[in-house]
């Protein structure tokens, strides 16, 4: 469970990968509770633009966050062509909207890079670290910041 708390260079272990707009993102695998298909969604008027609505996860009410909006990427979801990653932070669950789910990846200090300075600051603030994988870069999100309002 400690891996959850680790950050940056110290972060080692497995992360759950997912794609958003061709980029490969990930969150620590221990913070992921499950991955589900799109559900009936209740919209929340007046809420932040990134809040897509509320879903009923077996009796628990979970807020669905659109990572594209959160990260300042173009919002492109039509119909239900997305997947939902349920993540746990402390006691609360949050649902993240992603394009598609990828493999679980191993990361370590060897693959670690700090977030590139050239990133858009509005994007960069949610990035914990970048890892060099074979042929592509994996962005590890700082869940705490993503989930914070």
């Amino acid at each position, binding site marked *: 469970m400690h891996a959850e708390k680790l950050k940056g260079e110290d972060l080692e272990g497995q992360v759950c990968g997912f794609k958003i707009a061709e980029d490969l993102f990930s969150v620590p695998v221990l913070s992921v509770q499950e991955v589900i298909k799109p559900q*009936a969604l*209740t*919209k*929340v*008027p*007046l*809420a*932040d633009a*990134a*809040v897509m*609505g*509320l*879903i*009923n996860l077996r*009796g*628990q*009410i*979970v*807020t669905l*966050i659109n990572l594209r909006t959160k990260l300042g990427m173009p919002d492109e979801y039509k119909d239900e062509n997305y997947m939902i990653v349920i993540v746990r932070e402390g006691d*609360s*669950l*949050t649902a993240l909207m992603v394009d598609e789910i990828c493999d679980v990846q191993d990361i370590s200090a060897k693959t670690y890079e700090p977030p590139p300075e050239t990133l858009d600051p509005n994007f960069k603030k949610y990035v914990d670290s970048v890892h060099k994988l074979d042929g592509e870069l994996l962005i590890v999100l700082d869940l705490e910041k993503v*989930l*914070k*309002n």
Partner: protein
Amino acid sequence: MSSLGVDKGLALNNGVNVSEGFKVNEMVREYLLEGFEEISRITDGLTKLEQDPSNSEIINSVYRSMHTIKGASAFLQFSEIESFTHFVENLLDELRNETLKVTPDIIDILLKAVDHITAALNQVELSGSDEGCANEAFINTVKKTLSGGVDEASTASEAPGPDSSLVETSGTLDELKAELEKVDIQSVESTASQDLPGVAELNKSFAPTVGDGKGEVEEAMTKHQESSISDSVIKVHVNLLDKMMNVVGELVLNRNQILQHSSLSDSPELVRLANELNNITSELQTDIMATRMQPIGSVLGKFERLVRDLSRATGKKVALKLEGQDTELDRTIIEAIKDPLTHLVRNSLDHGIEPPEQRAASGKDPLGILLVKAYHEGGQVTIEIRDDGSGLSSEKILAKALEKGLVTEEKASEMSENQIHHLVFTPGFSTAEKVTNISGRGVGMDVVKTNIEKIGGQVDVSSVQGEGTTFKLKIPLTLAIIPALVVRANGEPFAIPQINLVELVRMDPSNSNQIEKVGSAEFLRLRGKLLPVLRLNKILGYQESLEKKSEDLNVVILNAEGMVYGLVVDEIQDTQEIVVKPLGQHLKDLNVYAGATIMGDGDVALILDAMGLVQGHTKDSDIGKERDNEISGEASIGFHEGQEMILFSLNSSATFGVPLVLVNRLEEFKRDQVELVGQRPVVQYRNTVMPIINLNSSLNLEGEQNLNEAFSVLVIKNRNKYFGLMVNTVLDIQVSESSELDSNHGQQKGILGSAFVGGATVSVIDIFKVIENSFGEESLPPEVLCGVGKTALVVDDSPFFRRIEIEAMKGQGFHVIEASNGQEALEKLQSNNVDIILSDIEMPVMNGYDLARQVRSQEELQSLPMVAITTKYDEKSKAEGEASGFSVYLEKFNKEEVIEAVSRFISQAS
């Protein structure tokens, strides 16, 4: 406290109390429960100790248990049990210090003592008294024998032959045992022979044992214990209860979904099963809820001691009266209100009730009364803490608030009594002149208020100086499952907690009772009250659909902490029981939602927050814009306490106002609707011809004529005839901060004076004067003036209303005398001959009720007509008004109604 005796309620129902004459109260019940538990722990420990005599841990634990019983006995003043357990505790202490050795014989003595304590507890359960339980005979025998034994034992340890001394000791102990058996029976006999409440029962239950010896005693005890408190209750971990509660919550939702499906199904069997499931689930839900319910007495009972100690510490004489201890609340709520309640009780003792000398000096009974009363009211539990002390001192509160910078001087001068009283809830406020260790240790009333509001409750204070203070807490029964009304806006479901719901209104668009507009704000007139109206679609940022315009308008009337308003929704659905679930942190900031819930069909619905809707709304709207920076508490009381004014503009930089109660309707007329009837403009209105008065010309305000196509008119009904007052623009409806009226200002013709409304000065128009001036007496419909040659006494603390009432009475030809409170009115009555009294209810010094009672107590005034005219208009107040002697109780202020009542009484009298 990690665990909870689940079953206090059940224990009551099971008829545990064998005796009829005596009912074990909550605290004694807890004491007994704990006592029996400790006893079984001690017995267990003692038998283990016998196997393992050197285990100091066991001795310590037995010692602690005995100490607990002793402490609890002392607390409840079972002094005989206390002294007995004290003795046993000392014995155990000697074992602990190893001045006494653990031997089977010592264990025997201790077990014997434990049996005696058990018997004593049983006696307490039966009779409520521990008389005769000290069992000094036992103690003396033990002491006598032990001192010999111990001495010998200690000498023996020095002596070379320990074996023989041990034999010696056990020899004396054998004697002791024999004697103890006698003593025990004697003590039972002596108890039984005493003339105590419940002794008859005791006598019966012990009667066979007295003659037949020890075996029977034990048998009788076992028999008795079968029905005793200790066996009817088990302890369950609260976490388990909470979990069960959650699971049942889910089951309820699941049942709802199944019910919905079954209603669509053709299978009668499924429908039957679903109905059965429905019944079982409901029952289970009720039972699980009941496990979490505790009588509030468990908290209130603790105040007896608190009040006793505090009154001793402060030298005050206080009698605590508790009412409604059986009222049940969810345990989480009981936990949450414990501290606020304690604070309020301390506060009443420390600040409320005066020292006996002071009370005697002011003619009160030196014994102060503190009443704590809990009762169910409208799906909530209300708890009142009422003292008959000195009451809140407005001057002191104001001085303090000014000193601490909580209000500005300007604001302070305009605050009503009630608003001033509510200042005590402002953070940083404490009137204690010095910090005592009773109250005023930095935990203020604001904490009380916040804590109560946190659990969805409300706090209110009312006080009459010299007579006392009442704090009223309104607490929801449970936090877990609440009934709610489901409405729809833009197709989405929203739940509104029933607790905020006042009523539902459906208006068809052709009905004249439509929504009236003032500026951009909308209002609904409902049974004489003007309520602000909000549209849910608009608040939530939805587009108002066009076709809705022609359909019925659904209005939900809500009460948000005393502020009543209407909420227009697209559709009203049914009520449901919902489980409130918190919103994630992304949505926490949205104060229009109180949470979310899962509906019968599995969909998620947001729960609306009645208060949040108003706050969210007022931020960007013009109603109540000025009110946002008011002191806290203003919003909740403003609509009741202040004077609602319609504000409008004329050809002047000043803002003008008319009290809303005097305005019948707001209308808009087109220019071409105006006809001239003999030089005077009129319009057709409600099948009559209504004269239009141009306020600009009435008040001699020069300026450009309003040339717009349409113009706004305030419709006034006077002497059964409509008058239209034409104004430039209706600006707003606002609540004035006080009902004060600065009438020095009122030199100008047609102006009653100026009032402070929404942070600005408003000139209040004397509309009756204006109408009179425009038409002259003769042009008004003929009317029999009932007051010629008669005298009326008008009593009202608000100069503003006094003025209106005086004008109304003068209009009837009365000679008018005025008074600003009941006391003054009584003085005026002594020197004047009065034919009728018109009085307000809520006034300083002496209120209307007391005035009426005083008047009625004088023989020559028995039949004097008394008319109450008040904003405090509800069934309860009305009943009180009539009981105290008012001839009629009217709502403030309908001139027609008042005049009608007055003329009726005057004609009856003559």
